C-alpha cells in the first residue's frame, strides 16, 4: 500500500503527472474574481469564503477523470485487482494520494489567496480548518465517481455530473464554517459537520468504490 502511495506521488511530480494542475486552477479563479467584481473591498470580504471554497471544489474536480482512468488504460488496474492488496485499500490509497497532490496544496494556498480576497483576519483559521477537514471528502467522493466512470471514453462530463451533487453537502457546511469564521461568529458546528461528512465518506465510500470497480473490470 505504501508502495502504491509513493508510486502515485512519484507519477504526479514526474513530467505530465498533473501535479499543480488543481493549484494553478485555484489560483486563476481566485485571482480573477477581484478583477471581475471590481474594487469593492466590502463585497469581496463577504464573498471571499464562498469563492475560496468553490474554487477549491472545482480545482478538485478538475483532476478526477485522471484518478483511475490512467491506471485503467495501461492495464495497471487489472493487475492491481489480482494483486494481494484488496481493492478497497487500492481506492483508499488512490483517494489519499489524490488529496495529497490536489487537496493539501489548496489548503496551504488558501490563506495566501484569502489575502487577495480581503478575507478578515479572524476568518483565516476557520477557512484553513474547514478546507483541511473538507477536502479529503472531495477526494474520496471523487474516487467513487472515478470508479463509476472508469472505462468510459470521455467519461469526464458524466463524472462531473455524478460527483457534483455529492459535493454539495461538503460545500455548504465547509463554506458556512468559513463564512461564520470570517464574520467572527462561532464556527464549531459546521466544522463538526464537515468532519462528519469526511469521516462518513472515508469510512464507507471505499467499499462502494471497490464494488463498483469490480463490476467495471469485468
Amino acid at each position, binding site marked *: 500500500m505504501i508502495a502504491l502511495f509513493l508510486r502515485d506521488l512519484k*507519477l504526479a511530480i*514526474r513530467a*505530465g503527472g498533473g501535479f499543480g494542475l488543481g493549484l494553478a486552477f485555484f489560483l486563476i479563479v481566485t485571482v480573477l474574481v477581484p478583477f471581475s467584481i471590481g474594487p469593492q473591498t466590502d463585497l469581496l470580504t463577504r464573498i471571499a469564503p464562498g469563492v475560496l471554497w468553490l474554487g477549491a471544489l472545482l480545482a478538485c474536480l478538475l483532476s478526477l477523470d485522471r484518478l483511475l482512468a490512467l491506471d485503467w*488504460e495501461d492495464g495497471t488496474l487489472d*493487475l492491481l485487482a*489480482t494483486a494481494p492488496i484488496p481493492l478497497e485499500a487500492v481506492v483508499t490509497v488512490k483517494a489519499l494520494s489524490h488529496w495529497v497532490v490536489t487537496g493539501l496544496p489548496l489548503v496551504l494556498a488558501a490563506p495566501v489567496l484569502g489575502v487577495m480576497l480581503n478575507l478578515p483576519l479572524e476568518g483565516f483559521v476557520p477557512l484553513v480548518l474547514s478546507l483541511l477537514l473538507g477536502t479529503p471528502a472531495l477526494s474520496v467522493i471523487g474516487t467513487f465517481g472515478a470508479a463509476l466512470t472508469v472505462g468510459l471514453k470521455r467519461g469526464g462530463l458524466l463524472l462531473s455530473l455524478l460527483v457534483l451533487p455529492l459535493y454539495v453537502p461538503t460545500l455548504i457546511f465547509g463554506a458556512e464554517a468559513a463564512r461564520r469564521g470570517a464574520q467572527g461568529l462561532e464556527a464549531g458546528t459546521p466544522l463538526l459537520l464537515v468532519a462528519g461528512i469526511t469521516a462518513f465518506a472515508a469510512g464507507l465510500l471505499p467499499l462502494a468504490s471497490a464494488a463498483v470497480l469490480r463490476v467495471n473490470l*469485468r
Partner: protein
Amino acid sequence: MTLTVTDLTVARAGMPVLEGVSFVVAPGQALVLRGPNGIGKTTLLRTLAGLQAPVAGRVDGAGEAVAYAGHADGIKATLTVAENLTFWARIFGTQGIGTALAAYALEPLADRISGELSAGQKRRLGLARMLVTGRLVWVMDEPTVSLDAGAVEMFASAIRAHLGQGGSAVIATHVALGLEGAALDVSPFRAVLPAPGSDAFDEAFL
C-alpha cells in the same frame, strides 16, 4: 498448486462465450489455449484470474495463487524500467528484481524511462513483472505479441524455469513456444445457448 477448472461457463458482456470448459493444470505443467479470435480466450483467462465471476462451473486452486498478464502491461511511461519492476515487487511483497531483469535481458535498460522503450521491450518488461510476483500460477494472454524470435526464446526459457520450480502456466497464444505440454483448443466449447433473459435483466440493474 493444482489449477482445476470444472465445467466452466464464461460470459463476455453478459453473453456466454465458452461453456463446459474443464481442464487440470498440475504444478510443473503448462497449458496452451488455442482458438480463433473472439472465441473467448481472454474472457476465460480473466475468469481464471478472478477479474470476473464465472457464469457456471468452478475454478479451484486459483485466487491468490494467480499472476495475470493481459494485453496491457501495466507499465507507467514516466517511471524507469527498474522503478516499474520494483513497484510490482513491493506490491506482491517480494524482494529483488535482478533475476527478472536478467531473464529478459533488461539490465542495460534498467534506468531508461519506460515511455522510451520499443513495443517489444515494453512487452519484455511486462513479462518480467510475472517473475517478481512470486505467484505459482501464471495466466498469460498473448504474451508473445510484438516479441522478436530472441525474446520469444527468452520467454520460453522463463516459462521452463518457472515450471521447473513447481509453477504452472495457462497461456493463450497463436505462436509455437516450443513448450512440451498440453494444448487445448477451446473452439469446441463455444457457447450455443443465448444468454438467459433473467441474467441480462440483472446485469442492467447492477
